[in-house]
């Protein structure tokens, strides 16, 4: 019996951490945030060398075929570094959709290129977890897509995974006719989202996605990965708060010696530790405990959203005025968790789904 990360998972985390420490430090993150033309290609190709985009790609398609928990471990590291990378869209959502709904040819065509980092796929799936007025994509019999998708992850990708109004997936090339993206400036500048207008864009359906449960499984996985990103970011904010409190002096003492500051840090730790165990279990359940998978994905998503909000606020307060400025860049993590809270469903709606999954609503 082993509840926790395996040695290999520990090494995976370390290798991603080490790379991001060196190549996606705060200066690099700031540069990405400030330059709309920066796609973070250096980061993604470096991560590709470590196998990050290949984590969920089966070995038969050039991947390393690891588990959802491995994918969550990577997400924790990305969150901890507030790293810009098309991980959620390309390595998680697109790979999951292709594995579950792509035919052999599609898998053969796309998965190896995802795995080696050469193909980035944005994800237009927001309507699956909550559709807005005016946003819906219709797939016509001639294979063209029409309509609008909101909150498309990684709009500077090479292609898009698009969910239509019947919960079927399609792949669209970014440079195809009838495809137009409009950047949606938002608070978390470590990720980009856009609106995608499709006017007769030629597309390739993933034919296995007729089963409506396929789309839900993709969302389940996505939610766990988003929650893992928050877990990493929250732990990083706590670590920064503790480190800051140990060196910052006020009233002739380091502020870490004030009971009020200590208790704020203790409360953050007390929230994060069980949330970590929940997240790991939710990731594990996706592969190994199908009966609980959806409920655990909902719990992980909603609970980490609340923990992230609490830690984001509290860690900022421990930093005092310095936490409010851009100087230490603490707000990059704060906003990243704010983003994670809303994408793929805010906590109230996800909790309602958790009730439905159990037949309680």
């Amino acid at each position, binding site marked *: 019996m082993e509840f926790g990360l395996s040695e290999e998972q520990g090494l995976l985390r370390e290798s991603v951490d080490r790379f991001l420490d060196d190549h996606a430090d705060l200066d690099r993150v700031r540069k990405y945030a400030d330059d709309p033309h920066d796609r973070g290609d250096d980061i993604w190709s470096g991560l590709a060398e470590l196998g990050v985009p290949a984590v969920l790609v089966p070995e038969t398609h050039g991947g390393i075929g690891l588990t959802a928990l491995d994918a969550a471990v990577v997400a924790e590291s990305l969150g901890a570094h507030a790293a810009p990378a098309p991980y959620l869209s390309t390595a998680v959502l697109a790979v999951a959709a292709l594995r579950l709904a792509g035919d052999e040819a599609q898998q053969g065509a796309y998965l190896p290129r995802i795995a080696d980092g050469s193909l980035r796929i944005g994800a237009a799936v*927001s309507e699956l977890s*909550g*559709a*807005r*007025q005016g946003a819906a994509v219709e797939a016509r019999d001639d294979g063209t897509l029409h309509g609008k998708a*909101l*909150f498309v992850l990684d709009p500077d990708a090479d292609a898009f995974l698009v969910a239509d109004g019947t919960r079927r997936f399609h792949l669209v090339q970014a440079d195809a006719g009838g495809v137009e993206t*409009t*950047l*949606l*400036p*938002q*608070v*978390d500048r470590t990720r980009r*989202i856009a*609106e995608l207008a499709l006017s007769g864009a030629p597309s390739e359906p993933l034919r296995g996605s007729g089963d409506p449960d396929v789309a839900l499984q993709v969302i389940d996985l996505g939610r766990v990965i988003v929650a893992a990103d928050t877990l990493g970011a929250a732990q990083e904010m706590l670590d920064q708060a503790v480190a800051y409190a140990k060196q*910052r*002096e*006020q*009233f*002739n*003492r380091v502020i870490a*010696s*004030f009971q*009020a*500051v200590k208790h*704020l840090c203790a409360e953050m730790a007390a929230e994060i530790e069980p949330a970590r165990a929940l997240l790991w279990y939710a990731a594990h359940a996706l592969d190994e405990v199908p009966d609980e998978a959806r409920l655990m994905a909902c719990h992980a998503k909603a609970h980490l959203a609340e923990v992230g*909000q609490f830690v984001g*606020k509290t860690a*900022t*307060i421990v930093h*005092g*005025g*310095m*936490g*409010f*400025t*851009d*100087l230490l860049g*603490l*707000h990059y993590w*704060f*906003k990243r968790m*704010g*983003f994670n*809270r*809303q*994408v793929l*469903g*805010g*906590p*109230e*709606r996800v*909790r*309602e789904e958790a009730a439905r999954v159990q037949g309680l609503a």
Partner: protein
Amino acid sequence: MDLSYGPQYDAFRQEVRDFIATHRDQAPRGQGIRSEPVKRWQKLLIEHGYAARTIPVEYGGHGGEPDILKARIIGEEFAAAQVPGGLGGQGVSMLVPTLLELGTEEQKREFIPPTLAGDMVWCQGYSEPGAGSDLASLRTSAVLDGDEWVINGSKIWTSTAHLADWIFCLVRTEPDAKKHQGISFLLFRMDTPGIEIRPLVDMTMASNFNEVFFTDVRVPKDQIVGQRGEGWYVANAILGHERDSLGDPNASLARVNRLVELMKTETVDGQRAIDNPAFRDRLIKIQARVTALRMNDMRILSSRINGRGDTGLARLITKLQATELRHDLEGLGIDIMGEFGLMFGKGPHLRDQGSWQNHYMYFLGLIIGGGTSQIQKNIISERGLGMPREPKAVVPAGS
């Protein structure tokens, strides 16, 4: 309990309304603080007693009697009509009352009239990077050299430094005195050689604040308010004013009402946010808290008018509660919009100019600024509940 202001005040309110109706065309619209329309409007308001109301005529004010209710009515009516009131800023709101109380006659005559007229703009130099909540541990020094103070050090959170003509500034002049007793309150021009201003970007990505660096800045000896070493007391004479102004409950009310409107239009999967019972429950909880703070504010106002001293605690808790409440309220606004709540900066789908995100962060800043919630709780427990200060720590020798 009598919540009417009384007939004489109803008449006064009508006067204010009439004034606004007659003159609103002359009100400035977004012009800068030094612009002619702004200064003309300020002059008009002072003449009518709607700005600088209680400041003596000889210092450029209106010379009226203090009247808290009239002041409140003026504020309410200008806000309701969405017409700018009199000049604010740290010069008018902080320096002028300080000088009135503790300045010399010369200082009053020199500084108050141009400040009120909008010709002299001030910034405040209190906070320092190293000091934070422990304001009195400031290290910016001023050493007397002949007839001049020579100032070295730096200040932070100086919100209008880049616009100001002058600064009122706390500096350490008596390095050997005890912490609070070595500070002096100086006034000097911001174009004095040796001053460097660097904008400070905050988490909203705006530069609402600055850092100001002083290198051998030379200031005439007599530009001091109060005596040497009394600066801490000079500054604190009016510091309470600032706390009251954070988290105005009427602004919170307006915000709740806006939130209700938003909840009626924002939908997910065809469901309006107001029809989502979990959101509705959060809304009503917040609405009750906003109402409670509004009533708390009314109680404080009433206590002031009636010269009662029975709202000490009610005042002490205001900053803590109001800033936390606003942060929560703005956070609910984001949540009910979902991903639309993330939108920020110029772009499509922005609701209310992105103000929900902006305020969510800004009020987190206010939870921290002007005494963090932790400091507020110390104050509430010590001054409000009579609990003892923390025992002095044993400081190892040499530190």
